[in-house]
């Protein structure tokens, strides 16, 4: 009885949330790992309900779907896995400097697509008039420039008029998609089909007989460069300061407008480069779905990887694994292909949610009492 009275008197809530001090890195990773595992368990349970299959079979199938039968020496799916991881990682790297600056570049999809479109145009229009090496240089430069332009337009308006960049970049995606659709109708191969099926000329060179090796190498280099740029260069420092507080940045003499515009130039340019790799390197064709939503997935990868290129490698690999693995599960158990989207969605939502337990701690009233006593 008495206790109740005392509690009423204090009006102490049942629990409250407090910010944690920095958690040991291995503890944070344990939490994230646990989140992924719980999410996968959840996915497994759902799969069993849907297909009535054996629980553990799901995971084995996922693994086979992502990597193929490695035991039998087949590396085709492994290469595909590496390629998809590399492209996703590349776009994630592209958006990271912008995100670190708290500029929500949701337009990677469009920036990569417009880069790819320029590649396609160069491959189709210039291959007769330019020698091959020069053509390659021109293709890469125009693609990169196109991506940069697509990225810098919202940045200029953000810097000078504070125009909301999330919405602006989002809209730019669809403008790029319609441009591609338009171009595909005008320059269709074969003519009149409304699509560009396959461009024969101006492909990027194939290294070592592996179609995907060039992309993987380029993006490996890009990862290292981006990690150094963000961590050790003066630009990287400026980006971090602007992201933390624009007022502080101004106070210490950083030209905020310049940093915003420059960073988005870089972000868009890298997206354009990835578009070029996709179109001139692997697809040799372009349509509105060439980037296929990777621009959006990249946002999640960059955020989940805490803007750290090293962690982003793991995150891209995880998402590609889930995607191709779940597609295989869907295929094996006669489920619909969209099963993969659901799996990816669930895992990402779990990982996003688990960050809470890394950054905050929940303190219950009882715990408090004991401390007081």
């Amino acid at each position, binding site marked *: 009885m008495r206790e109740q009275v005392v509690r009423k008197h204090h009006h102490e809530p049942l629990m409250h949330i407090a910010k944690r001090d920095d958690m040991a890195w291995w503890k944070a990773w344990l939490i994230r790992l646990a989140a992924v595992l719980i999410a996968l368990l959840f996915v497994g349970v759902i799969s069993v309900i849907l297909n009535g299959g054996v629980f553990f079979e799901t995971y084995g199938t996922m693994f086979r779907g992502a990597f193929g039968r490695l035991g039998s020496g087949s590396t085709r799916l492994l290469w595909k896995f590496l390629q998809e991881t590399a492209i996703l990682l590349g776009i994630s790297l592209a958006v990271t400097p912008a995100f670190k600056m708290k500029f929500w570049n949701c337009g990677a999809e469009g920036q990569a697509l417009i880069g790819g479109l320029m590649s396609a145009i160069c491959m189709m229009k210039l291959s007769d008039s330019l020698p091959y090496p020069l053509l390659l240089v021109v293709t890469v430069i125009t693609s990169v420039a196109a991506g940069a332009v697509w990225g810098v337009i919202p940045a200029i308006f953000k810097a000078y008029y504070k125009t909301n960049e999330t919405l602006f970049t989002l*809209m730019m995606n669809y403008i790029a998609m319609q441009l591609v659709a338009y171009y595909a109708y005008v320059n269709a191969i074969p003519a009149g089909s409304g699509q560009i099926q396959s461009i024969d000329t101006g492909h990027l060179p194939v290294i070592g007989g592996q179609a995907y090796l060039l992309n993987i190498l380029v993006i490996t280099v890009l990862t290292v460069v981006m990690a150094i740029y963000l961590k050790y260069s003066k630009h990287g420092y400026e980006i971090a300061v602007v992201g933390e507080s624009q007022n502080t940045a101004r106070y210490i003499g950083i030209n905020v407008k310049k940093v915003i515009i420059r960073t988005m130039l870089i972000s868009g340019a890298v997206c354009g480069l990835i578009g070029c790799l996709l179109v001139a390197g692997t697809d040799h064709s372009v349509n509105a779905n060439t980037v296929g939503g990777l621009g959006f997935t990249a946002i999640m990868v960059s955020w989940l990887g805490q803007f750290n290129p090293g962690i982003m490698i793991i995150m891209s690999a995880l998402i590609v694994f889930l995607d191709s693995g779940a597609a295989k599960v869907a295929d094996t158990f006669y489920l619909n292909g969209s099963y993969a989207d659901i799996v990816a969605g669930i895992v990402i939502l779990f990982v996003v949610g688990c960050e809470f337990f890394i950054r905050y701690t929940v303190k219950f009233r009882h715990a408090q009492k004991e401390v007081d006593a």
Partner: protein
Amino acid sequence: MIAAIIRRAILLGIPLLYGSTGEIVTEKSGHLNLGIPGIMYVGGISGVIGAFLYEQACGNNVENMNAVLAILIPFLCSVVGSMLMGLIYSFLTVTLRANQNVTGLALTTFGIGIGNFFGGSLIKLTNSEMPSIVLTKTSGFYSVTLPFADDLGWFGEIFLSHEFLTYLAVIVALVVSFVLNRTRVGLNLRAVGENPATADAAGINVTKYKYLATCIGSAIAGLGGLQYVMVYTDGVWSNDAFGDRGWLAIALVIFALWKPTMAIFGSFLFGALCNIHNYIDGLGVATQELFKMLPYVVTVSVLVITSMRKKREHQPPESLGLPYFREER
């Protein structure tokens, strides 16, 4: 002819109106819900599942079906489905303080996945040749219009020939506008979106408002998916058919400057812009693709112009997209 164009524009605009009204309610609480495209898919497929089960229960025979139930079951399923999505979003962003953009995008992937997955599974259940589910019977109940509209010429065609979900969309937008601008609840909600710390200090339950605004907003947006399936496509669900209308709805929020009444006219205008290429003679298929760009270009222009004019009442809610943590100083 003109009346027909306007009628068509309204029909096309209604999913966008539901979507943007829902998003406005959510954004007024300071949450930029990029999950709306996914939520609208879920709203659509939940309605389809409800209608499918009811049609099955009635032995696929119209005569066994009760008009009220045929409308109410899909409607409630749609509302519950999209509210659950809203609940996931608000649990993650409000309680767990996850990043809104990331959560929203993940929810969109998830929602579109759910829509196509259950759509595909139902298609398999029906053993049909076509990659779609046909719910013409339920759609028939949704497409009832006023009987005397045809007798009133162009006036009837423009104003009276619509299905009830169309009128409901306009009514919902007007009610939301009234609540936001003329009631205490609306004032509190706007305060939460502008400055949650101040609202909190004034004794407003910030968490409650954010949760309710997101869930109610999601439910409204989900109805857009329902209208699309039941009215626009006459009860035919095919995967991915809803397309990027969800993103257009988010664009419409900017176009409407966060005002539901503006969204009504904006949605009709967007409907017309989406459709205009069908009415201009002599356009090639290629140029049509360029015309489909119009709604996005218009949105970007509005976004730029309003930010350049810097009028206070035309700006997004001050703390849009920012998490609120009471104990942070």
